[in-house]
């Protein structure tokens, strides 16, 4: 296997990035990242967490850091991916922040949204508090690699008791100019005490060429705060996407996550949350739709570290053609996390003979007074449901399409924000039905 081929090259690059040219404020973190990456390298399928996903194809390509060439990218290019024009947005093109495409004019009071480069000076406290706290470089090779290239990314700070109705949108766009490039954005989200906000991450690929996204988001949700964090992964068909979200929750907080995945040749999303205060809750939902030879891996981890917390998780996958889906959902309950209430559901619909799913819903429970369940199903469209629809005069194709859409819509409906929900429902509707003309 060629896994070893470009890893030393990556180590070399990482070490260089952590060298003298590194921004002063991030130098220490970069050095730590480079050091850890040299130690950890890229995971192999021998690693239990990477058992079903091989990154050897990624390691075989010599990626160079992206340069931020934004030629040809205009507001119009991005329009289809903006859920609403008036939302504050940070736009990154080919790995670099683009002030001209971003819009922060509409930013309401009580929330600060900054690119990471700017935040290290103006929001120094927040950055130093969050950076490396939830996702230390020692977490895994990809996180270490991200740390060693620290520089681009976004910081969202919601001040205490501020309820922000307008979502903040972070767009990461890659075009043909980013081909064979890699970028390592870091997103830091902080919702202070009793604050409430919504942050959307969009990963958009406007190229069929291979490129490598290695993102890390660190999230802190303080006492009583509610943070909705939506991830829309629509990378290009040639892309490698590794995205890690690590969240830490305090007492009575609520973290709501949705992960929508349709892009990438090989994608991996790690979403984990630590319920580190009594009475907090987590909702992790997601939908993965793949076809062609796509490989999509979603790993979630819910760690109940304090009593009286609840978690709800619904992940669905629809796999077509030769695609390969992986789901690993872990619920971990510490000995003191009594009265934990956890529920996890994972459903997969296989649309073709050659599609493949590997699911691993895990429970690890060390407390006795808990209520934890998980359920997983794999199958195809229910024949009796199909028959029922046919008996009502719906033709077989339409019935199949509608039932497939309904399977997906079931989880999409859990997205609270109407604009995002409608947009993603439309994407799904286009995908499975011939009702494309209804669009827009």
């Amino acid at each position, binding site marked *: 296997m060629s896994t070893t081929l470009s890893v030393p090259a990556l180590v070399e690059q990482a070490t260089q990035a952590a060298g003298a040219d590194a921004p002063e404020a991030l130098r220490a973190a970069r050095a730590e990242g480079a050091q850890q990456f040299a130690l950890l390298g890229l995971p192999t399928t021998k690693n*239990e967490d990477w058992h079903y996903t091989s990154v050897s194809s990624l390691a075989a390509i010599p990626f160079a850091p992206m340069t931020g060439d934004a030629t040809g990218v205009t507001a119009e290019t991005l329009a289809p991916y903006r859920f609403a024009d008036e939302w504050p947005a940070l736009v990154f093109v080919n790995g670099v922040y683009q002030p001209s495409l971003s819009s922060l004019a509409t930013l309401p009071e009580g929330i600060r949204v900054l690119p990471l480069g700017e935040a290290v000076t103006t929001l120094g406290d927040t950055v130093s508090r969050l950076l490396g706290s939830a996702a230390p470089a020692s977490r895994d090779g990809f996180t270490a690699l991200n740390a060693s290239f620290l520089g681009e990314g976004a910081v969202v700070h919601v001040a205490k008791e501020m309820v922000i109705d307008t979502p903040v949108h972070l767009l990461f766009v890659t075009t043909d100019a980013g081909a064979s490039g890699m970028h390592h954005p870091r997103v830091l989200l902080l919702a202070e005490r009793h604050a409430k906000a919504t942050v959307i991450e969009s990963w958009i690929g406007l190229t069929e060429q291979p490129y490598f996204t290695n993102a890390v988001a660190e999230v802190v949700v303080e006492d009583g705060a509610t943070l909705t964090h939506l991830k829309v992964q629509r990378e290009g068909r040639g892309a490698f996407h590794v995205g890690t979200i690590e969240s830490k929750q305090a007492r009575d907080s609520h973290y709501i996550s949705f992960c929508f995945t349709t892009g990438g040749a090989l994608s991996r999303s790690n979403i984990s949350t630590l319920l580190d205060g009594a009475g907090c809750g987590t909702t992790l939902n997601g939908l993965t739709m793949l076809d062609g030879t796509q490989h999509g891996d979603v790993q979630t981890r819910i760690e109940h570290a304090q009593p009286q917390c609840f978690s709800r998780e619904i992940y669905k996958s629809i796999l077509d053609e030769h695609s390969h889906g992986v789901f690993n959902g872990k619920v971990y309950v510490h*000995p003191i996390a*009594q009265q934990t209430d956890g529920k996890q559901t994972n459903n*997969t619909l*296989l*649309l*073709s*003979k*050659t*599609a*493949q*799913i*590997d*699911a*691993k*819903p*895990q*429970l*690890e*429970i*060390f*407390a*006795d*007074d*808990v*209520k*934890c*369940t*998980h*359920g*997983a*199903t*794999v*199958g*195809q469209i229910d024949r009796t449901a199909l028959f029922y629809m046919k008996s009502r005069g719906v033709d077989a194709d339409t019935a199949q399409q509608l039932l497939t859409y309904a399977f997906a819509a079931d989880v999409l409906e859990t997205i609270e924000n109407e604009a995002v929900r409608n947009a993603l429902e439309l994407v799904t509707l286009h995908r499975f039905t011939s009702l494309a003309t209804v669009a827009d």
Partner: protein
Amino acid sequence: MSATIDQLVNREYQYGFSTDIESNTLPPGLSEDTVRFISAKKQEPEWLLEWRLKAYRRWLTMTEPHWPNVTYEPIDYQAVSYYSEPKTEKPLGSLDEVDPKLLETYSKLGISLNEQKRLSGVAVDAVFDSVSVGTTFREELAKEGIIFCSFGEAVREHPELVKQYLGSVVPYSDNYFAALNSAVFSDGSFCYIPKGVRCPLELSTYFRINQSNTGQFERTLIVADEGSYVSYLEGCTAPKRDTNQLHAAVVEIVALDNATVKYSTVQNWYAGDEEGKGGIYNFVTKRGKAMTNAKISWTQVETGSAITWKYPSVILQGDNSVGEFYSVAVASKMQQADTGTKMIHIGRNTKSNIVSKGISAMKGQNSYRGKVHILPKAEGARNYTQCDSMLVGNACGAHTFPYIEVENNSAILEHEASTSKIGEDQIFYLKQRGLDAEQAVSMIVSGFCKEVFKELPMEFALEAQQLLGITLEGSVG
């Protein structure tokens, strides 16, 4: 109340005694010579020795697996004695010739062969350490053409059958412990049911580890020829010992077309004391292969052993074959159990059903690890998995690691898991109906495990319920 609990918790292992019989024991150590010695001792043919040596050489290249969710002191394979047989002068013709001390041991265990013979209608092939010493109902079985004997005997008398099927389900290279077993297995049971025969008796062996520091390496091979049926029971108790004892058994089942094999186990080996001292290390490979329309059903009640590492599996090779796994695993004191099943769907319309009930108490750690794999050609495969855990006390743990791998879209899989505890209100309700706390717990647990117990043959079901009661006594108060 707490006095009673203490008393119950500290209750001595009921079967913790050892019989003082002179043994012909090999000094500790493992080398090619050990393998040759065992083979020579058992007067084995050349091909079997070769097979053992191949396994031994393969074992040397392997490393001990550490993926199970268990922790234990490293095992020194050179400190284990690989062969031990009770000294008996000449081959045994009848029970009368058996060393009375052996018979006494059996009666302490409540399995007096004479009693068994007369009352229960169960043919017992009792394995005492490594050599089978008594066999009953042989003649009755022979009438049907059924072969049920010790492994060594089968090698001598039916070499063609053994040669054909040995290693056909669990090859010697399968895993570390299977390779070790293949190299040094001492004895075990062999069973062959001819075409179209329905075995009239429940076949049963009682395994018993007696010698201190002797690893027990049983090998069981069950072959059910076309259209036959057999129900096989295995039950275990072991005397109390301070040093950990290694047990690496292999069970192979071959169910040819239209055959049905039901394999039930009650495992009650010494689990060690409250600090986790002593107790058996139980690393077992159990696997069956089901051909067209065949059915293999595993039922297990695991209450003993310090460490259990066991995944009875079914390879659903033939079309329409069925695999079942029913399990109750209890981990109390410092016990660690990592157990589950593998269902490999290869044939069309294959079905598998998994019901696993895990109970953790005191400082026990219980893991369910199961894999359901649907291969691309397994059209219309169906699986239902249910694994429920019950926690008693807050120092124990319950873990679920299901692996679902589907490569065919016509498959339908369902997996459900839940974790719960014995509710105060449930106990209160039963107490106000006149039951004491222990009885209440026992009753609730019995209810929890009902789905599995109903799969056990009747006498085993009773024993299993009692065992469960004893194991969990004192863990709730």
